[in-house]
Structure formats: C-alpha cells, structure tokens
C-alpha cells in the first residue's frame, strides 16, 4: 500500500498529455494498478475512452507493453498472451515473472465482454481483469449499460415526461465474478488510493485469475464539475451503493464501513444525470430499499464466510 504522495515519487507508467477529459477518473485507476506492480507488466485494453484517449497514433501514453483489441475481446486476448507466456516458460525460453492485466470499461465488461471475461476467469489464467466502471457507454456518447444505475438519464434511456431514465437496477458484476470461485475478487474506488493500491498489490502476488471492479466517475457523462471526481467516488461509498470489499478464496471482507450511512439522495443530488430521478420519491424509495437489502446481504456474507 502506498499513499498518493509516495506514488508520486516513483516513475509513473502512464505519462501525462493523453487526451482523457480534465478530471477523468480512469488515469487514476491506471496509476493505482501500475504503481502497485513490482514486476514487468503487460496491459491489454478493450475499446473505450481509455484506449481511445491514451493511444492516439502515433502517440502512446503507456510506458508498458500495450495491446488493444475490440470491445468484447480484452479478456480473451489477455488469455492468449498469458497462454503464450506459459508456453514460452515451459520451453525454457523465458524465465521472467511477468504480470498480465486486462482493462475494460463497464460497457466492454458488464455487457459485450462478459462472455470472454467469464471464460478467462473460469479457465483460471494467471491474469488480472480491471473493470473501470463509469456506469455508461461514455466513449460513444453516454448510452446506458447494464452498470447504469436505475433513474440515471442516458442518451438511450433518456429522462422525459414519462420515465426518468433507466428503469432497471445495475447488474452486480462483482458478485458474478465471485461466483466464478476465483482466488481474488475486489471492489474499490479511484478516490480511496490506499485501499485500491493495497488490493492491486495483493492481487499481483496471487497466482490465478483475479478481478477488480473500480468505481470511476465520468465528468461529461455524469454532468459534474472536473473537481468532483475524487469526492464523488468516495461519497458513493458512504451511501453503500458501491461497497468497498474483497473476496479472497471465498471469504468476504468489507474493507470500509461508513460511520454514518448516507441516504442515496446525497449522491444523486450532486449529478445532472439524476435530475429527473430526484423528483420521483417512489423510485428513490425503491432504490434505497434495494441498496439497503444489498448492503445487509453483503454484511451477512461477510459474517457467514468468516465463521470458524
């Protein structure tokens, strides 16, 4: 675990000058991942803002080997690279300890890439998949994804006179990954640097398939000021909508329990995407009940999996 101050002292493997928006969260996520790895690391990236803004030919912001493949394929491509590495190792052609990381946004992970992610995790490749979740398809213009929260207005689930945005709860991808029975699954947020880096450091020391879901605010997609990224990525945790936890070999651990659990509206009122939702008390109650039930269940899971 490092502090942002300590991390700033070591060479960053993602240079500045890339074209992510001012205040964008995923460059922070990348730095948290790469600064937590003391081994050579290979990065595979799905199509999305991260890939588009950091690799505008002939430039690249990545100071590590980097390979892009289409939206649904980062976990599959990473499986292939890791497979080639294992083969070279068996043949005695390579002896370095190399780590493999695949990045995808929520569109490329929750939706179109779920099949290839599931396959990679089930086969148990020695790789880590990091989903940076900004809760919509931001690269193509803020369309809804299965990670988009209920009541969020997107360009394909727009708030209007009849509905106030997306009408479904987000898919719980982290729990889907837990169900794969892989050695390590975690949920974190860009704004909690020590928690995030501790998790990535731990994951890099574990052999086998790892999955980390990192909450990643989006300035234009959420309708927020560039200064709000860190604040909102922490605020969501205090509402228990995005719990900070990890599941190591089936054992749950909630890494942060808010001293005062805030109502979901505290989070909603900070963002333009929830403007219409805020007028709909019935919908908010539905969401609050759902968040409360999920939070209660998570605490029960922690208790149940830690019994002696």
């Amino acid at each position, binding site marked *: 675990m490092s502090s942002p101050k300590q991390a700033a002292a070591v060479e960053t493997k993602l240079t500045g000058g890339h074209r992510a928006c001012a205040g964008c969260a995923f460059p922070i996520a990348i730095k948290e991942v790469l600064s937590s790895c003391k081994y050579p690391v290979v990065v595979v990236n799905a199509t999305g803002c991260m890939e588009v803004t950091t690799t505008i030919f002939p430039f690249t912001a990545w100071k590590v080997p980097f390979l892009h493949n289409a939206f*649904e394929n980062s976990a599959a491509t990473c499986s292939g690279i890791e497979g080639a590495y294992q083969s070279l190792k068996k043949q005695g052609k390579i002896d370095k300890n190399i780590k493999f990381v695949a990045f995808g946004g929520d569109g490329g992970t929750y939706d179109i890439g779920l099949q290839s992610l599931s396959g990679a995790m089930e086969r148990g490749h020695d790789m880590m998949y990091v989903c940076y979740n900004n809760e919509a398809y931001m690269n193509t213009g803020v369309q809804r994804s299965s990670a988009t929260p209920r009541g969020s207005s997107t*360009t394909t689930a727009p708030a209007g006179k009849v509905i106030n945005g997306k009408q479904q709860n987000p898919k719980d991808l982290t729990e889907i990954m837990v169900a794969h029975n892989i050695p390590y699954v975690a949920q974190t947020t860009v704004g909690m640097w020590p928690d995030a880096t501790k998790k990535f450091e731990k994951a890099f020391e574990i052999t086998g398939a790892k999955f980390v879901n990192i909450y990643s605010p989006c300035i234009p997609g959420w309708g927020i000021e560039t200064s709000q990224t860190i604040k909102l990525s922490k605020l969501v945790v205090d509402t228990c909508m995005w719990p900070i936890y990890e599941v190591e070999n089936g054992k749950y651990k909630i890494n942060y329990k808010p001293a005062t659990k805030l109502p979901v509206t505290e989070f909603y009122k900070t963002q333009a995407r929830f403007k219409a939702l805020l007028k709909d008390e019935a919908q908010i109650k539905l969401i609050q009940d759902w968040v409360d039930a999920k939070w209660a269940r998570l605490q029960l899971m922690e208790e149940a999996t830690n019994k002696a």
Partner: protein
Amino acid sequence: MTTGKQLIKGNTAIVEAALDAGCRFYAGYPITPQNEIPETMSWRMPEEGGTFIQAESELISINMVFGASAAGARAMTTSSSPGISLMQEGISYMAGCELPAVLVNVMRGGPGLGNIAPSQSDYFQAVKPGHGDFHIITLAPHNISEMYDYTFDAFDLADKYRIPVMILADGLLGQLMENVELDRSRKPALLNAPKPWALTGASGRKGQRIVSLLMQPGALEKHNMDLNEKYNLIKKNETRHELAGMEKNPEYLIAAFGTCARISKGTMNIAADAGIKTGLFRPITLWPFPYEALKEAAKKVKKVFVFEMNLGQMVEDVRLAVGDDSKIEFYGRPGGGVPTAEELFEFIRGKVK
C-alpha cells in the same frame, strides 16, 4: 420531423423512415457514427407505441431482430462496420430461415477498429455476406432524402421476398444534414399483408416451423435451389440504378455508389467545364447489381472510371459487367479518405489526355 421541406440529419431520416414504414421493433447497440439512430429510437419508438431495446452487443441486436421477425414484426437494427461483422452469423441464419428485416450499415474505416470516418470498405460484406450460399438486398443511398426513401422501401422489399435488406450508408451520409423535401404521405404497401409463415401460435391451425438446419440428404440442396429461384426473381424485378448525363453522348462513364456517386456529380460539372463529357452510372441496388444496364452504358464510352472510398471492391462487379478490363480505370481512397470532386477530375484528366 414533419412533412415537406426541412433540414435533417441522415441518421434521423432513417429513424423516421422506419417508423413511417411501420417498423415497431428496434434493437441496437452503440457504435459511432450511427449513434443518433439508437438514441433517437430510444424515445421515438415508445412515442409510436413500439419497442426499443438496447442490446448488450451487436450479436444480440441481430438475434433479437431474428426473434421479432419470426414473430411477424417489422424489425430493424443498425450499426457500423465492426458491428456488422459481429452480426454476420445472424444475417446468414435469417437468410436461411427467410426472415425479413431491415439492417443499416453506416460504414466507417477498417479493417479492425479502423476509425470513425466515412468509408465504403464494407461493399464486400454487404454484397457478398456471411457463410453459406445466400444474398441480401443492398440499397445504397447517396443523399439524405434517399436515406429516408430507401429505408422506407426496404421494409416492403423485405416482406415481399422474406429477405434481409441492408441500407449501405456511410459516416458522411449518417452525419450530414441536408435540406430535403420529404413526401411522408406514402403508406407502406405490404404493412398489413398477411405473414402466414410467421410463428404466431398454432391455435386453430397446423404448427409450422422456421429452420435453417436441413440434415436429410438433399434437403438443404433443395432449399438452396429454392432460395436461388427467389434470388433470380429479385434480380429480375428489383435491380435499380441511376444513369445520368448520357443525353450528351459522353466519351467517358463514371461508375460510383453512395457518397462517391454524390462527389462524382461535382466532378462531372468540373469535367464539362474543361470540355470532357462524362456520364454517371450509379448502382442503387448493389445486390442485385445492375450488370446488364452497366454493360449497355459502357458500350457507348471509351473508358469507365470507377471511384470508391476503398481499395477496389465494387470495381470487381464493374469488371464483370463491362467485360473489357482495358476500359476500366479505378481510383480509390481507403481508411476514411474522402476524395474531392477536383481530385477525381484530376485523375480523369490524367487518364484521358
């Protein structure tokens, strides 16, 4: 959008044409440069009492359309080049099952992720699609009113022949806004035509099936022959093209489709000013390709200039039609390159002096 003269975007014209044609099921997935279609559909479709679904991938979009079509609905999906690649399995299955649907490809540069600039790099995957022995009707608009008209027509064509119909547009036509005069009084001829083949429940009638798996020896061969008979009928009835400038007995003919045909009309004016008379042959149906009409038109000229925003795809069909390679001059711009009218004229001048 109203009737009469108005400024509209190509992608929006497609949405309104589909709704006017009675399409009440749309499934799609985000990809640039066609995002205005699902975005507009997301609120326009519910307004018209239809179903809009954002799928989790293009593979899912096309297979939702497969399901909706099998149930008898007028169904549509739209995408751009890489997304159409993902749909090819579904398109082949729909062709095998003879399911009507309208598909739109707002083409971008490739291969791979390519870019998001206008391109005609998917002529092959539209005209010679997927696995198995099949065809789909492909219509190529070259302005915004045709984006509306061809999309509107596509639904009747699809139902008439039980076949997927593709609108092959590109990023320029999708994003371009143009002042157009729309005739929205037309009614789709076959909207209420019975679909006795549709899977609507077997209550009160014999059960029926829609399959593309035919394992008995000879069964698939017969199915392929039946499909071929249908394809021959489509070739006979539906082959369309535009031929312009022939009244001035031009020495040269330009063959181009879509955006390249649009640019070529500017080239014709520049050439005329320079004393070079040209005609334009614009295939409207890319499949069925208007071989006969092009063959006749080419007989009257010294050379046929083929212009495409790719490295030579339609030119293969032009060669087949013309039957004399020495007459053909090809100029193409791949990877999102859009030629100017002057650039095409310079190419012509370089070859005719």
